């Protein structure tokens, strides 16, 4: 049973806000939600993490539903450089836990 479910792909135009959803219906109380993105020929890059409610940093914002079964990554004003595969991961990073990637969401950005 997959730990996370994301839409396989999304499309947007430059300057738009993009919201990528992730379903994690079996999330445990000890688990956090992480978002990474990967562009070709590079390793995944951390974007944001959260446990509940709302988190924001200089790159993105993350909204987590009250029951923590759904999270939404929000990217304001996307550019062509934001075209990547976005991965939502749920795991407990506290030592010795495996971190498994789901299938991810491929974001296509057009000028």
């Amino acid at each position: 049973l997959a730990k996370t479910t994301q839409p396989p792909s999304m499309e947007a135009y430059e300057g738009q806000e993009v919201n990528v959803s992730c379903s994690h219906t079996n999330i445990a109380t000890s688990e956090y939600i992480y978002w990474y993105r990967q562009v070709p020929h590079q390793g995944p890059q951390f974007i944001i993490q959260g446990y509940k409610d709302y988190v924001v940093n200089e790159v993105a914002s993350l909204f987590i539903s009250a029951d923590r079964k759904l999270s939404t990554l929000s990217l304001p004003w996307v550019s062509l450089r934001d075209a990547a595969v976005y991965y939502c991961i749920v795991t407990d990073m506290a030592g010795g836990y495996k971190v498994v990637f789901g299938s991810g969401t491929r974001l296509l950005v057009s000028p």
Partner: protein
Amino acid sequence: DTTVKQNPRYKLARVGKPVNLICSQTMNHDTMYWYQKKPNQAPKLLLFYYDKILNREADTFEKFQSSRPNNSFCSLYIGSAGLEYSAMYLCASSSWVLSAETLYFGSGTRLTVL
């Protein structure tokens, strides 16, 4: 320095020959991971070390070995490479010291088996 270094960046190997990939980090992270990434697929976890304890995924148990002689260094070993091993291999590290610490990834080693 929050970087994870992988060497080499590109590697060619012959079918049936062994392959050894190297990863290092100087962040004193206790957990190091190896992933295999093929085009249009998500990174697939192969194994990870928590301190000196090696955990290998069941479906890749026989195919990959690893060594972690010290906290900073971790290798991935393929005893006999097959064509299906051609992929990007990503190393990552994380720490339990800070709760919910992130993963730091290297740039990867692209392995081509001929």
